[in-house]
């Protein structure tokens, strides 16, 4: 399992702060809270997940209360409030994808990675979970991998195995 100390101090890179400052400029003055969702994505891309300390730092940056960040981060499904594997394989589990084999694919993923949904492999590389409709129903089964949400379509067991192998080699 990953060993991450939850209260570990958080440092944002200069590039991240620069990006966050650019995002805030998209909104009228005083409406900087609008930048919250995009900034949460940026922070998660850099740190892998959103720790309480990271969220407090975002609140400070946007001059809003920490609770305003927590309630948003916990509402939306894309934000991780716990450490994840380096690669989080998110498989669409909604109706149309299930018509073309998404459920079997998830069973296969569980077997080949050797971990249950939302668990992390012992080498810290992978976790996986079923997610709701990814709007690619005609190309199912599909999975995505953050933080850029690279998309893999028309999957079968072989393609998933190949993908896992490729990611291991990286």
């Amino acid at each position, binding site marked *: 399992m990953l060993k991450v100390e939850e209260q570990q101090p958080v440092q944002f890179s200069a590039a991240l702060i620069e990006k966050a400052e650019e995002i805030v400029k998209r909104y009228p003055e005083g409406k900087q809270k609008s930048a919250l969702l995009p900034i949460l*994505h940026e922070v998660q891309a850099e740190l892998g997940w959103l720790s309480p300390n990271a969220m407090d730092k975002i609140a400070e940056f946007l001059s809003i209360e920490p609770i305003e960040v927590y309630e948003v981060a916990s509402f939306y499904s894309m934000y991780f409030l716990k450490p994840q594997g380096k690669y989080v394989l998110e498989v669409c589990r909604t*109706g149309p994808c299930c018509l073309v084999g998404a459920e079997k694919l998830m069973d296969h993923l569980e077997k080949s990675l050797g971990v249950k949904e939302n668990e992390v492999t012992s080498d810290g590389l992978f976790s996986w979970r079923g997610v709701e409709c990814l709007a690619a129903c005609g190309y199912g089964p599909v999975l995505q991998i953050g933080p850029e949400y690279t998309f893999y379509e028309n999957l079968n067991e072989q393609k998933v195995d190949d993908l896992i192998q490729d990611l291991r080699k990286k």
Partner: protein
Amino acid sequence: MARKLLLEHINVPDIHTFDVYRQKGGYRAVEKALKTLTPDEVVEEVKKSGLRGRGGAGFPTGMKWSFLAKPEGVARYLVCNADESEPGTFKDRYLMTHIPHALIEGMIVSSFALGAHTSYIYVRGEMMPQIRILEKAIAEAKNAGFLGKNILGTGYDLELYVQPGGGAYICGEETALLESLEGKRGNPRIKPPFPAIAGLYGCPTVVNNVESIAATVPIINDGGDEYAKIGIGRSTGTKLISASGNLVRPGVYEIELGLPVEEFIYSDEWCGGIANGKRLKATVAGGSSVPVLPANLTLKLANGDPRLMSYESLSEGGFATGTMMGSGGFIAFDEDQCIVRNTWNFSRFYHHESCGQCSPCREGTGWMEKVLHRLEYGHGKMSDIDLLVDVSKKIEGNTICPLGDAAAWPVASAIRHFRDEFEWHVKEPVKSLNTNYGLANYAEPIAKAVSTEN
């Protein structure tokens, strides 16, 4: 070949770049609107076109625009709803991936019509690749003088930004989307006030679907009257249909509204029939929220006439024998698919995606999921079937936003048309775990009276 307005140049190499899009006649609508028309004239053309909102509700776009309040000295906003999340729907992803400039061009024309100087495209966060594509397209358009200050020397200013969502189906509901764009949880607002009066930051706002906004480009280029000639009756123009499920060729198709459903499913020009030589059992014609129909009622109306892909024909017969156009998410189920399992899957989806504000939806979607799980896994009781109908009726119409209805309709319609399959799951709990009910009589010519629950 059928007429294409949005996807005409889809196969042109590099059509996603500004230069190629422009060579193919792109941004003419911006030039025409900004240089030769007033904002009101643009609104008038869209009204004349009869364009109806392509996101699901089908409300006339021009009329929606004309409701926008215009108080002096208050900013107005156009927000594009690209939070495409309705199961079965993937047309906006397709459009943004392949022809991003069609959306940018439509955003400029529409923003001009509404007097907006800052506009946002709210894209679901999972579509990060599309967000990158749009950001690049915006930079190209700005570089070419189609965005920013004093566009084409006309004095009109517009800034366009892409906003990522956080992964929440509910943000496709326009007031939840606005909440989310303000950096909050996606809880739908109580209406009134409507966004046209108090939307983003309390300012007058229009929220339109990606496809609706892109459709303003051919409407301005050719005129609203020309657009209205395409299609059938009050279903004017073309519509992107996302076809998925057990089809030979699933994918995104641009159809002229009025195409017979049978032709859409079986013709080689479109979906090419049911995959693996199977037979059609059922369809969900407009995205997971709309009523599911058995094969016979998909292809024909209750009176035996062919059903057409149009707002009116799909809803012909009301919920007793019809469905809805919705967002155009067309899902086909072959004879091996289990309606109970799919209904359970959809119920889980709505339970997962309920924002939790209204008790009927928050609790009811969970109850329906549990009861359906029980039926699917061989622990159901006969009374569960009526229990589901009862719960669905108590959600429908009793929530702030339409998610409650969207959760209730698939369950109610599945039981309305496939009750014998649900009963079979109760009577044959072991058998139903390993085999499916099959095609039964769902594809037979409509002979049996269609049951309607009271």
